[in-house]
C-alpha cells in the first residue's frame, strides 16, 4: 500500500482556493452597496407609502411607517381630479399632452438623426466634416441663450404655444447628440459591407434601409431611451413654448404640487409625482431587455 498522506503531492493547496463569504472585503463591498441602495430607495419608499395613506394618517406624522389603511384615492385624484388653475381634470390632460409631444418628437428626431449619422459616416461629401463639427458645437451652446430667439422664430412661423412647435424644438435640440451617436455607430459597421452593397447596386436609401437599419436595433434603442427620458422630463421648453391647455405632464405636476391655495395634499402630490415618473421607468424596464437582445442579435463577426 502506498501511503498517500506521506507523498509530497498530498500536502499543500489543491483545487479551487477556498473563499470566506464574510471576508473584510465582502463586508465592505456589500455594506457600501446596501447603504447606497437605502439612500436612493428611501425617498421612493416614502413617496409610495405616503401616496397610499389618507390625509389624517399623514398628519399624524410617522412618514416611514407603512399605511394602516391602504387607499388608492390619492392616485385617482391625482390622475383625474387634481386642479391646476381652472382645470380640474387632473394629470391625465398633461399625460396625453406629453404623449402627443413625445411620440412625434422621438420619431422625427431619430429618423432625421439616423439618416444624418449614416450620411456623415458613409457618404462623405465636401465639407461634411465641417458640417459635423458645427452640429457638435451646437450641443455645447447653453440652452438659455437660445430660448428667446426660439420664441421669436416660433411666433413668426405661427407655432408658438402649439404642441407642434415644442415637437420642433425637441427635434432640433436632440439633433447633435443623436447624430453623433448614429454616426459613430454606423462608422463601426465594417466598410466592406457598404462597399459590397454598392457593388450589388444598392443606392443611398437602399443601403440605409436594407443593410444598415436591420443591423442597428441596439443603437435605436439607446436613442429612444435618451429621447424618452430627455423629452418626458423636460420642463424648461415645456413651460416656455406651450400654454396651459397644452402643458406637458411635468409642468402640470409642478403646478399641482406648488399650488398655494387650500390644504397641501401630500398623498396626491406623491401619487402625481410617481405617475409622472412612471413612463421613463417603464421605458427603462422594457428597453433594458430589448437592448441586450439587440446587441446579441447584431453580433456577427467576420
Amino acid at each position, binding site marked *: 500500500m502506498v501511503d498517500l498522506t506521506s507523498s509530497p503531492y498530498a500536502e499543500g493547496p489543491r483545487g479551487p482556493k477556498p473563499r470566506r463569504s464574510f471576508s473584510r472585503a465582502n463586508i465592505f463591498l456589500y455594506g457600501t452597496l446596501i447603504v447606497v441602495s437605502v439612500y436612493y430607495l428611501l425617498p421612493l419608499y416614502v413617496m409610495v407609502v405616503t401616496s397610499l395613506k389618507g390625509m389624517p394618517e399623514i398628519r399624524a406624522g410617522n412618514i416611514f411607517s407603512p399605511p394602516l389603511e391602504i387607499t388608492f384615492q390619492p392616485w385617482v385624484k391625482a390622475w383625474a381630479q387634481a386642479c391646476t388653475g381652472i382645470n380640474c381634470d387632473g394629470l391625465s390632460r398633461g399625460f396625453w399632452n406629453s404623449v402627443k409631444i413625445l411620440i412625434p418628437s422621438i420619431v422625427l428626431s431619430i429618423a432625421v438623426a439616423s439618416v444624418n449619422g449614416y450620411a456623415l459616416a458613409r457618404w462623405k461629401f465636401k465639407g461634411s466634416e465641417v458640417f459635423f463639427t458645427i452640429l457638435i458645437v451646437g450641443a455645447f451652446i447653453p440652452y438659455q441663450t437660445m430660448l428667446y430667439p426660439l420664441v421669436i422664430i416660433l411666433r413668426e412661423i405661427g407655432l408658438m404655444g402649439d404642441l407642434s412647435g415644442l415637437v420642433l424644438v425637441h427635434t432640433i435640440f436632440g439633433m447633435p447628440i443623436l447624430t453623433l451617436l448614429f454616426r459613430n455607430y454606423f462608422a463601426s459597421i465594417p466598410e*466592406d459591407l457598404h*462597399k459590397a452593397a454598392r457593388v*450589388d*447596386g444598392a443606392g443611398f436609401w437602399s443601403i440605409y434601409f436594407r443593410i444598415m437599419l436591420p443591423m442597428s436595433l441596439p443603437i435605436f434603442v439607446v436613442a429612444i431611451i435618451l429621447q424618452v427620458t430627455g423629452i418626458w422630463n423636460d420642463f424648461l421648453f415645456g413651460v416656455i413654448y406651450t400654454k396651459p391647455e397644452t402643458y406637458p405632464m411635468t409642468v402640470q405636476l409642478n403646478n399641482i404640487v406648488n399650488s398655494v391655495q387650500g390644504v397641501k395634499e401630500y398623498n396626491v402630490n406623491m401619487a402625481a409625482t410617481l405617475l409622472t415618473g412612471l413612463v421613463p421607468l417603464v421605458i427603462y424596464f422594457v428597453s433594458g431587455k430589448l437592448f441586450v437582445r439587440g446587441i446579441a442579435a447584431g453580433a456577427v463577426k*467576420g
Partner: protein
Amino acid sequence: MHSVEIRDLDLSFGAIEVLKGLNLNIEDGEFLVLLGSSGCGKSTLLNCIAGLLEVTDGQIFIKDRNVTWEEPSDRGIGMVFQSYALYPQMTVEGNLSFGLKNARMSKDEIAKRVGRAAEILQIKPLLKRKPAALSGGQRQRVAIGRALVRDADVFLFDEPLSNLDAKLRADLRVEIKRLHQQLKNTIIYVTHDQVEALTLADRIAVMKGGQIQQLASPTEIYNRPGNRYVADFVGSPAMNFVEGLLIEDRFEARDQVLSIRDYPFAKQPGGLATMGIRPEHVATGAAAEALSFNTDVPVEVIEPMGSDTLAWTRLADEPFRVRLDGQTSIRPGDRLKIGIDLSKASFFDAETEVRL
C-alpha cells in the same frame, strides 16, 4: 481585346499620392494577381477598378468600355472582400440574390442563377442559413457566390483568403483556381501572400509605392526578378544577397571570386553589384563539387521544416541561407560544401537595384 485596361491612373488622398501614372492591361480570361506588402496601393487599385474610389486622374476600361465615371454596379464586376462582407441579417440565399433584386431581375432568373452558383460552390444545403451560422470557409464561399451570380465579366478578389486558417486557405486556393479554369472569367486578385500569387496567377504584378515593379508570369518573377525588391519579396525563404564588385569576367565579394561567364548579362557589366541566389538554388555535396564555384561554409543555425531543412550559413561575411533535404543530419558548427550555378543567380545594380 483587353478585358481591363488602366491608363495613366493617378490617385491621391490630399497630398498623399497612392497611385502614380499606373498603366495595366489585363487580357480576357486572365488571372492577374496584384502582389505587394501592405500600403503598396494594391487594394486601392482594386477599389479604383471596382469604382469604390474616385480616381484623381486617368481612365479605366472594362471590356473596351470607359467605366471611369460609372457606378460599381454598372461596371460588370463582382467583388469578394477579405472580411466576406456578408449581410448578417439576410440568409445565404438573400445575400446571393440581393444584387440581382436591385437589378430588378425576374424571380425565375434569380432562382436559376442562385441555384447555379450554389451548385458550383457546393453551398446548396446552406442557402437558408444566416452568415452567423457558417464557418469561415463557408462564408467565403458565399462571398464568392455573390460575385458569381452577377455573371460579371471581371471578378475582383481583395485578399479573400487572409482571414482563414492555413489549411482552409490552401483548400480554397485550389478551389479558386479550379473555379477559374471552369468559368474562364477575368480575375484580378489582390494578396500579400506570395504563395497564393505564384500558385494562382497567369501573371503577377508586384507593386510597391503605388507603382508596378514587375508584371510577368510567376516563373519569370520567380526566376528572373526584375529588380532587387521583387527578388527579395517573392520566394520563401527569401533570396540570399551578396554585395560585391563586377570586374570583367568575375564577381568579387570579399574573399570569394566567382566567374560570371555563365550569366546572361543584358549589357556589358561592371561596377558595384548585388548577386542574388535563392536558397533552393544553392547546390550542396557532390552536386556542388561539379560546379565551377564551390566553397566550404560554416553552419550557424538549422531550421528543420519537415519537407526540407534550412541552414543558416555565412558567405563573404553575410548571412546565407541554404535549403537542404529534410532528412539531412547536419548540425550547427558543421561545415557545409556549397556550390553556386550562376545561370540560376540574378545580378542587380547596386545603385538602381535593377536587374543586370
